[in-house]
């Protein structure tokens, strides 16, 4: 058996691969598969590798993506990002100015978030042994919510809120990869902490996730399966960019599987949904409620379609586009 590209999709095959890896660690690892781990001392930690191709794209670059991607994993668990550790793998022959540009871009987001780079490493690989540069970024921060946000909090009736239109990053990278022209489209790559911070005070916020690889659909499947709850979302409530729809249409992708890089789905108790939405609206004018957690069909995510049925949403099965983040 070999590791295949599909194992990096973020969908079901990825889940299986991770399962195998964790089984080796047995009890010496964390069991709940959240985006970041909450560890002793009220700290949260996460690590992420970034290999996106192309490295520069409308709306961002690999440096910005690395800081956003890793700190967003903290933000959606109610952890304030504070420190970064970064490892950069560079291919021999990369123009130095490109490296500097990437690091400056990373610095820009770090500054905005007030996070410090406290550890780092660089390696240079012989030409051909890497494609330009890869970044691995570890983010550390402090949990500030009363109770940790996580899928264990999910319960029937919770309202699902999305902070903006879905799939923009995935659609953009796909379009660039397959040579489709989409001049209107930019990645949604952005830090989520500014959005999430005000919510850390709201008791009714249960759980959040940035919808990266595998998209909104995969995240919701993980929630439904992980918490043994049912989820129902409505097709016509999900904010969608026409350009994203068009890319998905051409390539035959499901928009629910297209990655976001600065868009989160948040589960909140029904009585504070309105409050959460109005609070989010300040920075995320397109945020909206898209569905709810139900008692029906535990473990299954249903999509209410325009023609009236409820379709099963599954995780992404194979790879869509290699190297999306």
């Amino acid at each position, binding site marked *: 058996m070999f590791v295949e590209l599909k194992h990096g999709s973020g969908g*079901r095959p990825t889940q299986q691969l991770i399962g195998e890896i964790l089984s080796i660690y047995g009890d010496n690892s964390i069991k709940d598969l959240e985006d970041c781990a909450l560890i002793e001392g009220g700290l949260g930690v996460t690590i992420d590798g970034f290999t996106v191709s192309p490295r520069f794209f409308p709306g961002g670059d690999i440096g910005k993506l690395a800081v956003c991607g890793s700190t967003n994993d903290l933000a959606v668990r109610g952890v304030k990002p504070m420190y970064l550790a970064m490892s950069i793998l560079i291919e021999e022959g990369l123009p130095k100015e490109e490296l500097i540009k990437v690091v400056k871009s990373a610095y820009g987001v770090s500054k905005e978030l007030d996070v410090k780079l406290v550890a780092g490493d660089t390696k240079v690989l012989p030409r051909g042994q890497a494609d330009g540069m890869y970044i691995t970024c570890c983010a550390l921060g402090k949990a500030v919510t009363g109770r940790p946000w996580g899928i264990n909090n999910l319960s029937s009736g919770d309202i699902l809120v999305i902070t903006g239109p879905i799939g923009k990053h995935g659609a953009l990278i796909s379009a660039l990869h397959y*040579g489709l022209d989409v001049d209107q489209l930019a990645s949604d790559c952005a830090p989520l902490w500014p959005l999430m911070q005000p919510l850390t005070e709201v008791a009714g916020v249960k759980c959040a996730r940035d919808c990266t690889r595998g998209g909104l659909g995969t995240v919701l499947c993980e929630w439904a399966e992980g918490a043994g709850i049912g989820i129902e979302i409505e097709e016509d409530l999900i904010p969608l960019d026409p350009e994203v729809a068009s890319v998905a*249409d051409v*390539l*035959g992708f499901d928009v629910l599987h297209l990655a976001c890089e600065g868009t989160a789905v948040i589960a909140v108790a029904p009585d504070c949904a309105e409050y959460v939405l109005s609070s989010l609206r300040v920075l995320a004018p397109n945020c909206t409620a898209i569905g709810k957690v139900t008692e029906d069909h535990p473990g299954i995510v249903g999509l209410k379609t325009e*023609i*009236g*049925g*409820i379709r*099963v949403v599954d995780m992404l099965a194979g790879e869509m586009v290699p190297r999306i983040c």
Partner: protein
Amino acid sequence: MIRKVLLVKGIVQGVGFRPFCAKLAKELKLGGSVQNNSSGVLIELCGSNENIDEFSKKLLDEAPPLAMIQTIEIISEEKLLGPIGEFTIKASERQEMQLVLIPPDIATCDDCLQEMRDPNDKRYRYPFINCTNCGPRYTIIKELPYDRTKTTMACFPMCDDCSSEYNDVTDRRYHAQPNACPECGPTLWLCDARGKKLASNDEAIALAKAHLKAGRILAVKGIGGYHLACDPRNDEAVRALRARKKRPDKPFALMAKDFKAAEKVVLLNGMARKLLASPRRPIVVCPKAKGCGPLLSAYVAPNIDTYGVMLPYTPIQHLLLEDEDLDLLIMTSANLSDEPLVAGNREALQKLASITDYYLMHDRDIYVKIDDSVIAMAGNTPIFTRRARGYVPQPYISKDVLPPIFGAGGEMKSTFSVSHDHYIFTSQYLGDLKEVASIALYEHVMDMFLSLYEISPLFLVHDKHPMYLSTKIAKDKLPEVKDSLAVQHHHAHLAACLWDNDFQGEAMGLILDGTGFGDDGNIWGGEILVGNAKSFIRWGHLLEAPLPGGDKAVLEPWRFALSILLKTFGLDKSMELADKFWPDRKRTSEALIRNMNIYVKTSSAGRLFDAAASLLGLRDAVTYDAQAAIELEALAKGRECAPFRLERENGHLILDWRPAIEWLIMGLMGGKRKERLAAGFHDGFAAALAQACKDISLETRIRHVALSGGVWQNKRLLNVTCALLRRAGLEPLVHKNTSPNDECISLGQIAIGIERWSK
């Protein structure tokens, strides 16, 4: 004088078998008893040797219409010491092993109809009249043995009259579990879209008819669920139904008062009549009658040359269709898009509120939902396109004891099958498992089958597709199986067709369908296999081409049309043709052509027919399954033969469609009639398939050809291919008791499992 005890096995409960025995025993002056037990019916006979032999003979010859006697076992035979005595019917007994077979639901019989129309009868115009020979069965049973208390009729205690019928051995309603009368039984009422009751019983019928005549849409509760009914002559009503149901094109089924009404709109041959009138009452898809066009709204079954027709099978339906000016009704399953049909009253009020104007409701609960069965006539050959009411849960019977296997089935036209003892039980059509509600139905029926028959499968067979939900459900529900097996989709088709034909040897398989997960990770669907349930080889297949946009390509046939143009004509010419055929889709088609190599490849025959339909300008996008191919078939007229090529490539036989696509495009450019092009595409393809089989037969000496896969619902393709195969001295094997589409996958899975796990 002797005393003989017989055990009769088969479908012998709930079909009037015991009263029949009692009547027969009385006729022959025999004493003794008859009793249902969990293995069948136990008959004790006391009397002369001759009369007892006569009894056994008549048991087989004159058994009630829905009884299916499998075996008659002699349990004991001895000299009778005492007197002959009375013949009695004894109460059911429950034993450890439960092997009783449940009968399917049965159309109202002639005796009951006569009573219902007799003003002097206590059940005059009673909408729930039934007897031992007719009425609901499968849909009302919750538990075995089959007794009233175990059905949804348990909440209607019988009045004295009904009770005495029920207990009178000589009565037609002796132990008829759904027996009822106006005094004690269920009631019928009409309510508006918000559930407000407007009329009851006969007044409800009168009002319902008036509303139908006025062009309103009604939800009518039937045996396995609700129908949506309206007047098919009323254009506005039919269009409203289409709009509200969000079902733009898929044909609506018709219910005809009688043959006379049916023949106004369809051509009926002998076989079609037989099926229509059978107590199983399927929808029979028949050619539209010549000149029937103006009679019905064009929106009943647009762009095709057939209507699906059935005859009434419940008293309510007979009452609704009693007037000459309402002798045809649209009766389409009441559901939302691809969801299972609606069967509960509350469910109906909730889900159908935006579709229906009124409800014709009653309070006899439907325990399990089941759709109407659909059979299409390919000349005189009936082809199941949906096996459900009237047929399920009748099992396949094997002479061997079978290992207990669960076959999880496919995904789109899902069914499951389970083997047990000498039987294979196949569920009804359970719908598209991509619908959340279908999953619930699958689980409900699965629980029901396993508990009714007390089966704990030791083995699981499922499709090789890594994402099929049927596999997931079965694995979740059967965590304790000893062993499981993933079976290639088209191998399951082959095995199903062979089992269905009771054929044991090796056969060729022309397996043509839309999609199946191939052993090489590609999407298969135009497969020439050689093998049996034990094993198979992929002898050949259709030329493969990329399927641009995965599932999208299924909904938009023009995408695969573009792909085959590219494969046939190369870049420049295909771009040029694409601009011509789909000028509005230029942006997408250019992107698709540029990226064609990223898409998964398919050898699907279903997609090829869709694509041909798109090239002929029939349609670029479909609103129901196989629509493009169905319309291509409807278009085909005349005699032509498109050239398909057979080639050997790396030891594989490749059926190359490129010459046929060239022929099609040339014909289009040359102004040849599309009817002939469509005909040529069908017949040329059939000729190539037959030729391939001839070649393989020369090499292997195999003579039988199994035809399975949804594409074989194409009547023209089936008839022409069968004729050509026979002419070549080969023998086609066509599905008999199951559909060639993916409904048969679970049966094939069981057949393959039997090979694997029979010791």
